[in-house]
C-alpha cells in the first residue's frame, strides 16, 4: 500500500488524464484543476474532485502557483504532480509545494536548478565524466574571445542562452562573419526571455540523432536507466515521432549511454523519473545535451518496451519506497513507436488549427494505446498546446510496429479540426524513416517532399458528404414542420436509429 492518499494534478489535457488513472490504480484520490475553458474537459470528468483556478490564459490558471498550492492545501491533498510543461521544471514552485508540507512528485528543487542553468549543467557533467560537446563559456568574455573560441571549436557553432531552454536564444552560425550578430541577437533574446543575457558556444552537430535515456532514482541511493528513446524525427526542434529501441544504437552504445545517464543523474543527486538527452553522431560518438527533470511526453514508449508504469513508479518513489527492481532485472522487449497528433495545418505552414471535435474515434486493438485529453464535442482552443493525442503502438520488431502504427493512424477519426495525421503517414512511409536513418534535420530539410499531396477526392467521399447534407436538410425540415404541428410522423427522417436511405 502506498502511503500517499490524495494528489493535486497541476496540469490539464492528456497528461492530467494519465496521472489521474495512475492515482486511481494506486487507490489515491485524484484532484483536478481547470481553467475557464476546461470546465467540461476529460481530466475534470475523470477526477474525483475538480477545482476552478482561473481564466483560460495559462498565467492566470495553470501557471498560478499560489492558487494551485492553496487549492491543494484546502482540498486536503498530501502531494502535487506537475505533469510536463507548465510548472513542472520550476524549482521555485517545487520548493513552494514542499514548504506547504506537500510532497512534490519529482526531483529536488536543487536538482531542477542545477540542470536548468545550461552552463552549470555542462560543467557538472564534465566533472562527472559525462561527455559534453566541445564549447566555450565565460560570463564576462568579450567578442574577440568568442571569435577565437569559435575558431577553436570549429564551425558550425551554436550560440545558446545559459539561462534556459525551449529553443529561445539559440542561433546556429556557419561562418565567422555571422558570429557577432548572432551573439548580440542571442544575448538580447536571452535577456528578454530569461532576464539573463549570458550565452555560451557549443559545437553544432548537423547530422545528429536525438537519443535520450530514461532514468529513475529512489531516495535510497538506487539509480537505474530504462533504456533509450530516439526522438530524431522533429520539426523545428518539436518532436513528432519517438521510438524505442533506437535503430542507431548497438548494445555496446546502449550500455555506455545508459551508464552516462546514470552518472549524470547521480551528479545532481537526482531522485524520481528524469530524462538525459544526448546528441549522437553517425559514427557513434555521443554528447550530453540537457536533462529534463520531469516526466516526458514520450514516456509511454518506455512503458511499452519495459512493462513499467512510470507514473505509478513516480508516486512510489516520492512516497519513499525503494525501487523493486535492479538494472539487471530490466529488459527492452520488442519495439514501441509514438506519434504525436497535433491540431495543425501542415499545408498552411503548420499553423495551429482550432475547432470543435465532433467525432473522435480511436482504434481499440491489441498493443495500441491512445493517450488523449479530448473527447467528442470538445473545443480545441487557442490557449493551449496543439498536441491533442498520442498514439503508441508496440510489436515484436520495428517493421511490425511500423505496420501497426500505419494501420492505427488510418483508423483514427478526428473530425471538426485539421490534424497532422496525413503528415505523420507520409513520414512513416518515407524510405529514410523506414530505414531508421532520420536525423534531427531530416524533416526540416525535406519538408517539401514530406508534405502530403492534397488527396484526390474520391467520388465515394463526395457522395457521403451529399448524403450527410441531405440528411441534415431533411431533419431541419422535419423540425420546422413539427413547429406547425403538421409533422409527418411517418417520415423515415425522424427515426434516429439505423434508418436507411434508398433501400
Amino acid at each position: 500500500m502506498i502511503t500517499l492518499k490524495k494528489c493535486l494534478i497541476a496540469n490539464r489535457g492528456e497528461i492530467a488524464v494519465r496521472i489521474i488513472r495512475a492515482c486511481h490504480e494506486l487507490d489515491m484520490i485524484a484532484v483536478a484543476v481547470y481553467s475557464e475553458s476546461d470546465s467540461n474537459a476529460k481530466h475534470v470528468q475523470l477526477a474525483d474532485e475538480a477545482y476552478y483556478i482561473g481564466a483560460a490564459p495559462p498565467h492566470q490558471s495553470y501557471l498560478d502557483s499560489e492558487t494551485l498550492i492553496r487549492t491543494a492545501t484546502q482540498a486536503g491533498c498530501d502531494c502535487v504532480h506537475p505533469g510536463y510543461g507548465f510548472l513542472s521544471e520550476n524549482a521555485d514552485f517545487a520548493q513552494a509545494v514542499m514548504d506547504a508540507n506537500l510532497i512534490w512528485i519529482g526531483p529536488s528543487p536543487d536538482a531542477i536548478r542545477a540542470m536548468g542553468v545550461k552552463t552549470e549543467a555542462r560543467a557538472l557533467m564534465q566533472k562527472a565524466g559525462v561527455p559534453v560537446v566541445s564549447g566555450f563559456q565565460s560570463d564576462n568574455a568579450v567578442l574577440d574571445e568568442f571569435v577565437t573560441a569559435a575558431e577553436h571549436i570549429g564551425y558550425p557553432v551554436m550560440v545558446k542562452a545559459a539561462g534556459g531552454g525551449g529553443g529561445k536564444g539559440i542561433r546556429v552560425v556557419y561562418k565567422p562573419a555571422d558570429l557577432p550578430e548572432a551573439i548580440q541577437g542571442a544575448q538580447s533574446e536571452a535577456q528578454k526571455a530569461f532576464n539573463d543575457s549570458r550565452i555560451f558556444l557549443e559545437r553544432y552537430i548537423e547530422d545528429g540523432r536525438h537519443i535520450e535515456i530514461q532514468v529513475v532514482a529512489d531516495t535510497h541511493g538506487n539509480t537505474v536507466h530504462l533504456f533509450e528513446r530516439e526522438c530524431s524525427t522533429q520539426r523545428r526542434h518539436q518532436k513528432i515521432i519517438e521510438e524505442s529501441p533506437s535503430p542507431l544504437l548497438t548494445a555496446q552504445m546502449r550500455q555506455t549511454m545508459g551508464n552516462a545517464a546514470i552518472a549524470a543523474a547521480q551528479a545532481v543527486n537526482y531522485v524520481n523519473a528524469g530524462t538525459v538527452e544526448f546528441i549522437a553522431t553517425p559514427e557513434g560518438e555521443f554528447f550530453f545535451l540537457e536533462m529534463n527533470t520531469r516526466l516526458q511526453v514520450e514516456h509511454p514508449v518506455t512503458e511499452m518496451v519495459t512493462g513499467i508504469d512510470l507514473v505509478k513508479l513516480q508516486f512510489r518513489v516520492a512516497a519513499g519506497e525503494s525501487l523493486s527492481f535492479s538494472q539487471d532485472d530490466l529488459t527492452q522487449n520488442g519495439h514501441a513507436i509514438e506519434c504525436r497528433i497535433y491540431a495543425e495545418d501542415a499545408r498552411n505552414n503548420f499553423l495551429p488549427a482550432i475547432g470543435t471535435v465532433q467525432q473522435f474515434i480511436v482504434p481499440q486493438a491489441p498493443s495500441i494505446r491512445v493517450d488523449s485529453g479530448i473527447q467528442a464535442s470538445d473545443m480545441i482552443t487557442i490557449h493551449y498546446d496543439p498536441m491533442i493525442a498520442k498514439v503508441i503502438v508496440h510489436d515484436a520488431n520495428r517493421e511490425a510496429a511500423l505496420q501497426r502504427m500505419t494501420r492505427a493512424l488510418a483508423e483514427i477519426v478526428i473530425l471538426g479540426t485539421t490534424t497532422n495525421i496525413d503528415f505523420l503517414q507520409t513520414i512513416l512511409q518515407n524510405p529514410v524513416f523506414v530505414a531508421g536513418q532520420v536525423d534531427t534535420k531530416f524533416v526540416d530539410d525535406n519538408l517539401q517532399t514530406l508534405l502530403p499531396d492534397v488527396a484526390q477526392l474520391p467520388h465515394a467521399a463526395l457522395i457521403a458528404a451529399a448524403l450527410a447534407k441531405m440528411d441534415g436538410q431533411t431533419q431541419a425540415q422535419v423540425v420546422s414542420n413539427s413547429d406547425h404541428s403538421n409533422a409527418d410522423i411517418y417520415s423515415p427522417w425522424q427515426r434516429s436509429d439505423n434508418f436507411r436511405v434508398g433501400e
Partner: protein
Amino acid sequence: MQYSYEYNGETVSVKLERQADGQMKATIGDSEYSVTASQIAGGGWLMHINSKRFLAHTASDSEAQYVHLNGTQFKLEKVENRRRRGKGSSRSGDLIAEMPGQVIDVRVKEGRSVQSGDVLLVLEAMKMEIRISAPHDGTVAKLRVKTGDVVARGQALVKISQM
C-alpha cells in the same frame, strides 16, 4: 438535388436522385452510380456504391463538411461560406488573421504612418506568436482589434491605406 462544395480550390458537385426502386442515383460529371446507404452511430454512412462497400464518417460545421474515408480526412468547404468569406477579404488593404488567436500586442495607432515590414500587431495561439507586419508603406486607416481580443481565422485586423 445538386450538392456543391469547394475542394482544393475547385468546385465539386454531385447530384443525388431517388429512384423508383428505392435506390439512389448519384451523378458526378459523366459518372453515374447506384447508391444504398445506412446511417451509422455518431455520424456517417455505410454505403454500397455500384455494389462496392464504403464506410465514411461525416461531420460538419459552419465552414465545412468533413468526411473520413479509408484512412483519409477530406474537408469540403461550403460554397455559400466561401462566397461570404471572399467578400470579407476583398476589402482593400485589410490584413486578415491567418489563424485564430488572441491579440497580445498592438503596436500602432490609427492615423500613424508605417513602413513596409513594420510589426503592427502580434497574435498568439497555442504558444505560437505570429507578427502581423505592414505589407507596404502607408497609414493605419482602421484598427479593428485591441489587445486581448480573440479573433477568428479570416477576421479583418487592421487596414493600411496606400501612401
